[in-house]
């Protein structure tokens, strides 16, 4: 940095970075092992999936947050329903455009329900569902990539408005994620089930019902009725 900065032609091609990076890259072996190739392939696929679901600011600015969410969800195989409309809006496999979904900003369209079941929704994709005013109903049934961090994001985002949440058959969800749903004060119905990683699920659900008095949790058997019938035979 104390070399006098003479402007030569070749300086135009010199990189701003340190030259150590080139030395290190040369000394690195390219990963041709089976594990290396598999990992590179799966990393690339994961990157592709995340990038396809990133938050697009222009979409939200043009359509408004409610309709933008509708576009995001419907184009990936989900369903949405707006206030004042009875029918679900779902993509039509035969046509390019989605029927009944506006393609520009309309103030009267407010999202009431979002059904993302069986979508490969990732954490970054949930960012597209922000700033909705009155979302009441959300289903994430059988979404294979929903985990505790996603539930943290959902409970942080919809803590004031959500009344129905369905997280059945999400294999990555543990009891910590379900406990974080205690932030949602208006939650009335929660559907759980099919979480092999969740330990002490019954206890967490009981404690959750303690904290949220309006809540009913469906899908949890607090009392194993077969044990009750066996008692008589033991005595």
């Amino acid at each position, binding site marked *: *940095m*104390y*070399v006098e*900065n003479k402007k030569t032609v070749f300086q135009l091609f010199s990189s701003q*970075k*340190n030259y*150590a*990076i080139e*030395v*290190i*890259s040369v*000394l*690195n*072996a390219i990963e041709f092992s089976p*594990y290396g190739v598999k990992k590179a392939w799966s990393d690339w696929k*994961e990157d592709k999936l995340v990038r396809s679901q990133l938050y697009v600011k222009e979409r939200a600015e043009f359509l408004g947050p409610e309709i933008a969410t509708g576009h995001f969800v419907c184009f990936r195989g989900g369903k949405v329903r707006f206030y004042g409309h009875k029918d679900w809006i779902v993509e039509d496999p035969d046509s390019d455009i989605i029927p009944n979904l506006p393609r520009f900003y309309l103030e009267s369209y407010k999202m009431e329900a979002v059904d993302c079941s069986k979508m490969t929704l990732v*954490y970054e994709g949930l960012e597209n569902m922000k700033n909705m005013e009155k979302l009441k109903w959300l289903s994430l049934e059988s979404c294979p990539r929903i985990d*505790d*961090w996603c*539930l*943290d*994001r959902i*409970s*942080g*985002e919809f*803590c004031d408005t959500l009344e129905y949440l369905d997280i059945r058959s999400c294999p990555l969800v543990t*009891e*910590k*994620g379900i*406990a*974080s749903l*205690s*932030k949602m*004060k208006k939650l009335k119905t929660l559907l759980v089930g099919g979480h092999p990683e969740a330990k*002490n699920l019954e*206890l*967490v659900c009981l*404690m*959750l019902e*303690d*904290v949220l008095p309006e809540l009913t949790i469906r899908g949890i058997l607090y009392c194993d009725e077969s044990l009750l019938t066996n008692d008589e035979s033991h005595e």
Partner: protein
Amino acid sequence: MFKRAITGVQLKPWLKSKYLVQSLSFPVRSFCNSQKKYSNKGDESDKPLSNVVPDFQSELFEETRCPPLTQPLKPFLHPIKRSFDYLGITGRNDPQTHNNLYFPRHCDIVIIGGGIMGCSIAYWLKQRGHDNGLRVIVVERDPNYTRASTVLSVGGLRQQFSLPENIQMSLFGAEFLRNAKRLLSGENLEGPDVQFHPYGYLFLATQKGADQLMENHKLQTSLGAKIKLFSPYKLKEKFPWINTDGVELASFGQENEGWFDPWALLNGFRNKAIELGVEFVKADTVGFETEDTLVHSKPGVGESFNYNKLKRVHVRLTNGEVRTIDFSLCVMAAGAQSGEVSKLAGIGIGTGLLRKALPVEPRKRYVYCFHAPDGPGLDCPLTVDTTGSYFRREGLGGHYIAGKSPTANEEPGIANLDVDYTFFDQQVWPEIAQRVPGFENIKLKSAWSGYYDYNTFDQNAVIGSHPYHGNLMFATGFSGHGIQHAPAVGKAIMELVVDGRFIDIDLKRFGFERILTNHPVFEQNIV
């Protein structure tokens, strides 16, 4: 006189490491006066620090002399044993080295300290230059981590800080923890399950602190953190178990805040680093060795002077033997003991740039675990009271964890890790019981203590190279919030080493220079 020490130095191109150039650029910009003769045109990202120093102190311009460090050591190895060592015959079951057949005698980068910072830095460095790109050695004296701050920490993750660098590091840490299972997995290695509990952090403020809290909140939301402010009425609505007396404002982290398992993260980093080829050595650092290097100056501007370059570290193995490791770069990640270990390199016992020691020292902090049947339910976040006491839920059985940072005159002694239960009875319990009436009826179950690597200067990290010892980098002094910043700090040090500057998060304000120029960078939200 000042010409001699730092200004007006031009290096011959064939002279050694780029770290030398890097190190001499920083202090010059700190101490040079308004003549812009030596402005850096090549480095637009660096703002000149010359306008930061308002008053010149004559001490700054005294010559930097590194005092004589450890005697040069050439450990004697019997030639037959040495041959066996090279052939890898006896070294196979050597407990000193983890995966190396013989004791490593040289490396590119030696990391002193194998806690969360050391392992994180080792992982990131080896990610960039794996196989033969970079040879990294981690010197850790206790692989069981009995006294390490990492494993004794409460493991909190929050974005509620007052400095943008801290907020950005926490955001990066949250993203890393979310992907930790995938990033730290390997061929025969399963990634760690960090057990993240997404329950949030709740900071309470009195009337005095409310303004600061609002300012912090603005900064945090502008950087992408999701924090919400609550008035006392709304707070009582949200958390009915809280007593809002004296609370003017509260801030609650809605997303990416909570606590996780530091052991899992440490093991994740360590195992992945070992898989990538980092060598872990079980030894205690006992000294550094320097090499005299002649630095030439441009004729007419200055005179050549002697620069003591750190070249070798002496480590003592468990059998008492002292061995040496030659290095090109050393990273000081020794946690609470960093101040002591830096003294071995002359930092604090020399003159000039070496006159100020690294102000990191161990401070003991207690954590108490108790059972409260009437305590808050599942929605209990990690609550930090206006008095500084904090508590959080632990598990599902009505257990809670609480603690408090003592005031300056109540600092406990650091000789051992014994717990003082009277501190709980007199300081912590009254305060949390006042805040949560349900804590009046509790039973103390257990407690533990650990060391904060406390930065006595401004309670913030020291990250970056030393102005004189350009090849000694610090990553220490986190004063209690290191564990959540570990992934970000590892990446920052990796960027400094490989790219020469910070790319992702700009941590220049945390450099060692602020200690010499006496410009503290305070963090308002220390727990």
